[in-house]
């Protein structure tokens, strides 16, 4: 099997062109799926027996939590690829993931608080999932903070890649330690609903929404990575040509 296709992605002009073609597809399909699954989740799904309409925030909350972890994984894997094979585009992708990760973790935490208030009776509980999500947010902020503190882009790339890889080792340990800590400390103060498996009318909008979030992530990641690639090579020959081509294509 030839790896030529992979190496082509390492070339900024090629990445810029292909990502520019792909991004709108991801963006528009994400928008359509969000609308369909919102309709499914807010209108079609039946009212929950225990939580009445409050459960509907699940369609925003759960996909955001899933995507936060996926974003971190994507960031760390592309940072590692960039570090090992010295591919600048991979670093640009890792940079593009970080703000998306912050927004996913913040959305997950905030909607979790809003959901917790009516169902658990509290805005905040030291629940393992909440704490893990909070530490994921700290990791993203540390990554962004480290990058912004280093002026030289090449050094920033590699230092932040080391941090992302160290974080990958740490994320499961954090998860485990929080589970362990929680099983010792927390008396069952929080009512946990013991509900039957989710009926299909409730489930399909959730799965569809997760797909929509994933597509949205790819869209925003590609848009940001394109901007990052341009910013790094600003003043370069191919950037001028690509921008001229974009301008011509935009007016046509």
């Amino acid at each position, binding site marked *: 099997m030839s790896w030529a296709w992979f190496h082509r992605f390492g070339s900024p002009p090629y990445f810029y062109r292909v990502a520019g073609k792909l991004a709108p597809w991801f963006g528009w399909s994400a928008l359509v799926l969000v609308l369909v699954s919102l309709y499914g989740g807010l209108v079609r799904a039946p009212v929950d027996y225990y939580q009445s309409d409050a459960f509907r925030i699940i369609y925003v909350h759960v996909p955001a939590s899933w995507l936060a972890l996926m974003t971190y994984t994507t960031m760390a894997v592309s940072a590692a690829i960039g570090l090992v094979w010295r591919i600048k585009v991979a670093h640009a992708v890792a940079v593009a993931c970080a703000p998306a990760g912050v927004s996913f973790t913040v959305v997950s935490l905030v909607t979790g608080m809003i959901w917790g208030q009516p169902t658990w009776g509290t805005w905040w509980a030291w629940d393992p999932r909440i704490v893990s999500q909070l*530490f994921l947010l*700290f*990791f993203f*902020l*540390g990554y962004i*903070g*480290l990058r912004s*503190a*280093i002026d*030289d882009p090449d*050094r920033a790339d*590699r*230092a932040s890649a*080391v*941090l992302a*890889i*160290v*974080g990958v*080792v*740490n994320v499961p*340990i*954090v998860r*485990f*330690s*929080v589970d*362990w*800590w929680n099983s*010792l400390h927390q008396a069952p103060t929080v009512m946990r609903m013991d509900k039957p498996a989710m009926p299909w009318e409730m489930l399909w909008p959730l799965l569809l929404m997760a797909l929509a979030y994933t597509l949205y992530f790819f869209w925003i990641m590609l848009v940001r990575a394109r901007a990052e690639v341009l910013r790094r090579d600003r003043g370069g020959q191919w950037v001028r040509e690509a921008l001229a081509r974009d301008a011509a294509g935009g007016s046509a």
Partner: protein
Amino acid sequence: MSAPLVPAAAAFASALRRDLLQAARRPGEWLQPLAFFVIVTVLFPLSLDPELARLRHLAPAALWVALLLATLLALDFLYREDARDGTLEQFALSGQPFAVMIFAKTATHWLLTGLPLALVGPLAAISLGAPPQNALAVLWPLLLGSVSMSLIGSICAGLTLGTRRGGALLSLLVLPLAMPALVFGARATQLAIAGESAAGALYLLGAITVLALTLAPLAAAAAVRISLE
């Protein structure tokens, strides 16, 4: 470049000796974190409630927060001086494994901050209301925990080496990484003060420390190397 004449172990020992000698000539630098640790543990009773029975509940939190902050304070000058006068570059050029040389620096850091803090720990625990017959058991979690924090810190200090505003960023990087050690360490301390067996938490803390001993020197060496370029 000529082949290395001195094996890595000798290089490690000479780097360690050099750092300890330097520290002996500048005692202010490594006494600072120790004083800081004592002050933080003293501030807890002053800002809370001087009743010993109630303080005892908070003692593990006070000890571990103070340990973490004092380690952070000392991390700031782990590499800075050696980066400025070119010692780190000489380490990199010496032909010895860079991770070994960086590990020597981390070992010094632990000997000068982690070890004294852990040794003062039982005394601080007594002042926070721990029964004296249980206080000595506090030593083990503090010893293990300070090792893993020095190692985690050596990675993060390497990453922030070339940055302008190191301090605040350093704590943002270290605290999430040090969280598991804090959880197990504080629990082991709590059990030790209560006079119960802390073995379970200690084993997990030991596992984290061994993992950090295995991986952190490599990551720290990579981080410092990047910052040197």
